[in-house]
């Protein structure tokens, strides 16, 4: 029976190693293809700075709007309208069902004149794309708190609504907010479809367009873009784990009662 177990182990590790090769090989190949010099010249390519600046600007605007819209709504629904949660989840799945390529067609069709032709339209449309993930991140964060109890405890100790939101909820939602922010930013920085069809040269669009002239620079820029996303996501994972370990262990004094059983759903 021991040999059976050993055979299985060999097979398992083979699968994992083959998978690792499949996923890492292209990255390495791209690195070799681009060559070190390409990384240097990426920055000096025409359009690099302007497209990156546009992407960053859009990312910031989108994130701010998304959070400003989703945070109060999610908290409100959790607190006051729990029956709407199902509906909320349904609505936030819609952007998955409606592909960006179709969405941009619709958006361009109904956009009022003063918005059309500005990058604001794109940012507002991005908020729709970001909705599902933002909602999910905030929802998960809120579910880990015993929201009703915390708010009631805070109110019973004399804090008004604004105080409660600012001093009680926000600190506890730090990880969720960070998650949501990073997802928003990563989404906007990587979005190609709607930007290109709305005729805006964001960073991904620039990479594509620029590939006609210099394939190596485009590959280098692609690697950079992927690397940055990777750092972002790694960052949330690390920060998130540290944060939850901190609050799981030594709870802030006001909330020890509410947090003794944080087992989420």
């Amino acid at each position: 029976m021991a040999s059976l177990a050993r055979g299985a182990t060999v097979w398992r590790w083979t699968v994992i190693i083959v998978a690792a090769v499949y996923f890492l090989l292209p990255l390495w190949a791209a690195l070799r293809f681009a060559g070190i010099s390409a990384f240097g010249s990426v920055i000096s390519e025409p359009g690099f700075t302007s497209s990156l600046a546009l992407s960053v600007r859009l990312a910031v605007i989108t994130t701010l709007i998304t959070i400003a819209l989703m945070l109060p709504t999610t908290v409100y629904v959790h607190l006051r309208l729990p029956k709407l949660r199902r509906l909320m989840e349904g609505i936030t799945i819609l952007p998955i069902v409606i592909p960006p390529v179709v969405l941009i067609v619709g958006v361009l069709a109904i956009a009022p004149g003063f918005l059309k032709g500005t990058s604001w339209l794109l940012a507002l449309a991005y908020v729709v794309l970001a909705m599902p993930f933002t909602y999910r991140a905030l929802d998960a964060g809120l579910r880990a708190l015993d929201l009703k109890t915390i708010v009631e405890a805070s109110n019973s100790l004399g804090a008004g609504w604004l105080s409660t939101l600012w001093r009680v909820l926000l600190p506890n939602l730090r990880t969720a907010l960070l998650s949501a922010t990073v997802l928003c930013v990563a989404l906007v920085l990587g979005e190609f479809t709607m930007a290109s069809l709305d005729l805006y040269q964001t960073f991904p669009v620039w990479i594509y367009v620029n590939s006609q002239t210099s394939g190596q620079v485009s590959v280098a820029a692609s690697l950079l873009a992927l690397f940055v996303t990777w750092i972002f996501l790694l960052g949330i994972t690390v920060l998130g784990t540290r944060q939850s370990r901190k609050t799981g262990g030594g709870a802030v004094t006001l909330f020890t009662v509410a947090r003794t059983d944080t087992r989420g759903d």
Partner: protein
Amino acid sequence: MDQAVQTPGPLAGPGVPGSGAGAAPGAPGRLSATHLLRGLRRALGVIPFGLYVAFFLLAPMVAVAIGAFQDNNGNFTLSNVHAATHGIYLHGFWQSILLSVISAVLPGILGLILAYAIVRSEGGNLLRQIAITAAGVFANFGGVPLAFIFIATIGSSGLVNQWLTSLGFDPYNHGFTLYSLLGVVIVYLYFQIPLMVLVILPALEGLRPAWREAAENLGARSWDYWRYVGGPVLLPSFLGCVLLLFGSALSAYATAEALTNGTIPLTAIQIGSFLNGNVIAGQENIGKALGLGMVVIIAVAMLLYVAMQRRAAKWLR
């Protein structure tokens, strides 16, 4: 994924509830005026969100849906729908569906195998953590950057191709090309497999060891266990995820565009070309009809997905 950076974890785990069909919050039967007023006041808090969704999600969709049935003068017509379901557009639909099915089932199976290997190996928690983080990261690699990275790998002047050629075998001489449906599938695997792993891992871990042991204790061998217990329990999650992968592949635009430059008829690309102006004037609404068709297909897939996940959640509690 190309068009959206998707972290599949929160969205695609078992137990994603909520169907798109919005049921009104179950208010008690009494419809007194005070009740209505109170209900309205409570709803105030979600008005900003509601308005935003109405303007930037529902309105565009309605515009597309209506436009699909309008001709250039705004009159009702079925000609757009007719064009969308014939000729090159029909061909595009078939290609897209074929591509999406392959790009869903193949990574589905491969992802399941990989996830199973991860779950059963003795790397313990560390391996699992690494695997999840890696999967989360790779599931978000997509779009234009991914296309270029693969061009650098198996494109005609890519590294692997050069290496194979130096060994005497040039795949491009034998009919292989990255810039084809096959090539697109290969590239899609790169983010579809991790997505599958992320979704199926919790489901695999939800298979309690007690079930396996109880089955063994009652006389089942490995095959019996998988056939009667493990397989059936895992099936809804597996099917659900395959549906998710299908939807994601169908909507994908950026990767395919970057790879094929519009040479292969795919519905998403065809819709895009209507906006790019690469079409005969006076036919813009065909693009909307195509869009409507795509949404319908994906909506059906997603409804099935939600149903599957509900099933899975019930069993894997």
